[in-house]
């Protein structure tokens, strides 16, 4: 064996611990290893999303019809615009981060501080936007009826545009008695209350001749199937079970509940990463301001937290594609 080992350097230099075969410091290399493992975690989530979507590929919600809102533009359908804005914010905060890293290499303390500050602002805007996106998704849009088989029926007028259940339901004196804390030993909360119950929606639907039902199933052109008036009436009478408004982990007015589950889980996990990134950036920002890295004569901590921040941006690029585009 000894003959095959190159002996140009003394053994101590190679194995003594002082040398860097990959020319990266311990901390930076460990950050890369963490990023690889975290990338595999996110890939696991996205691949699981793909698995579930392929299972129900002919009944999956169309993202364009789900995320159509933009703040302050009420009633104006703006599919994709808000998430495009969020993507730009995150890419831009990546740019300020990499500028901070570069200023750190040049030992320019005040520039690093300024760019770190801008990165933190960008991250905060992104997390806030994600909270708004969640709130809009949870609140819902038009409302729908869930069938006994757990499928979603949505309402259209004869021109093919969506109709909100609130605009045609006929309010009645409610006959349902809500289960309350006062008459239950183990009160776990009642069913979620919707603004109208199934009876009211059905009565309104039967009274309006221009309403049709759209099912979750996509036809060969990729559009949800619209039933005829007769079929619609038969469907809601025979299969209707309850009214769904908005989305949560059990029900989803936009379509398959798994879509909502994965949306909450993946964007939530990503949002948690952004939030942690902002927190870490704040810590590093204060260290820059009080001159810790000036005294250390190295801004490598900024570079390491920068790697994490860019990784968060990288994950968003994939989440954006697979949740909103594809």
């Amino acid at each position, binding site marked *: 064996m000894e003959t095959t080992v190159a002996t140009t350097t003394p053994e101590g230099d190679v194995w003594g611990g002082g040398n860097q075969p*990959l020319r990266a410091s311990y901390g930076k290399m460990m950050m890369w290893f963490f990023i690889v493992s975290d*990338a595999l975690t996110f890939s696991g989530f996205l*691949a699981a999303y793909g698995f579930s979507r392929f299972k129900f590929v002919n009944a999956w919600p169309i993202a364009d019809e789900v995320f159509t809102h933009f703040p302050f533009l009420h009633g104006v359908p703006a599919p994709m615009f808000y998430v495009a804005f969020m993507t730009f914010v995150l890419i831009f905060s*990546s740019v300020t*981060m990499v500028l901070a890293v570069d200023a750190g290499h040049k030992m320019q303390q005040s520039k690093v501080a300024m760019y770190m500050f801008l990165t933190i602002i960008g991250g905060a805007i992104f997390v806030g936007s994600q909270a708004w996106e969640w709130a809009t998704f949870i609140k819902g849009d038009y409302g729908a009826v869930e069938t006994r088989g757990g499928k979603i029926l949505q309402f259209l007028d004869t021109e093919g545009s969506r109709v909100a259940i609130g605009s045609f339901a006929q309010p009645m004196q409610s006959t349902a008695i809500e289960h309350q804390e006062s008459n239950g030993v183990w009160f776990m909360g009642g069913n979620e209350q919707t603004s109208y119950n199934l009876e009211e929606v059905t009565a309104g639907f039967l009274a309006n001749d221009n309403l049709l039902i759209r099912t979750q199933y996509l036809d060969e052109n990729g559009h949800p199937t619209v039933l005829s008036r007769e079929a619609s009436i038969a469907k809601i009478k025979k299969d209707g079970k309850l009214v769904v408004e908005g989305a949560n982990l059990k029900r989803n007015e936009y379509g398959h509940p798994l879509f909502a589950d994965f949306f909450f889980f993946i964007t939530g996990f990503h949002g948690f990463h952004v939030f942690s990134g902002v927190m870490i950036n704040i810590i590093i920002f204060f260290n820059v301001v009080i001159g810790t890295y000036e005294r250390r004569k190295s801004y*490598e901590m900024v570079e390491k937290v920068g790697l994490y921040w860019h990784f968060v941006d990288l994950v968003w690029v*994939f989440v954006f594609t697979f949740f909103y585009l594809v």
Partner: protein
Amino acid sequence: MGHHEHSLAIFRGRLKFKTIEQKIWGVFIFLSIITIVEVVFGIIKPESLMVPFISSFEGGFMATMANIFLSPFIFMKPLNLIFIVLTIVKAYYITWDFMHMRDEKKALRRMVVWTAIFLICYLVLILLVEGDYIFEVYKNNYIKFDF
């Protein structure tokens, strides 16, 4: 750690920048253009890109092989293929220029990138094939339980 050289060229040396700041802004503009293209395609969804380019081959072994090798063009909508390719391009420039992978040693680069790419491709292949199989079972529903 130590200051190593930054490479200032992108697109395989076709576009060279004078300073590192200029390269960062150049990459930012490039990523922005890609994102705008994605959003525009996502809103318009051109009809011509919504059906696969070629239909699947019928026949024996060679047809099956052709279907496998050309699967992105046979079984995917061209629009989705474009989105995925653009996403990978974006991921490349984020990793290479923002995360400075371009300036790392080849061994570190391969350790990170090849490991991730291999494991992700493997996992995605397995899960998507299985998902498609379950879809077929639900659709044809001649197996109720043992699948």
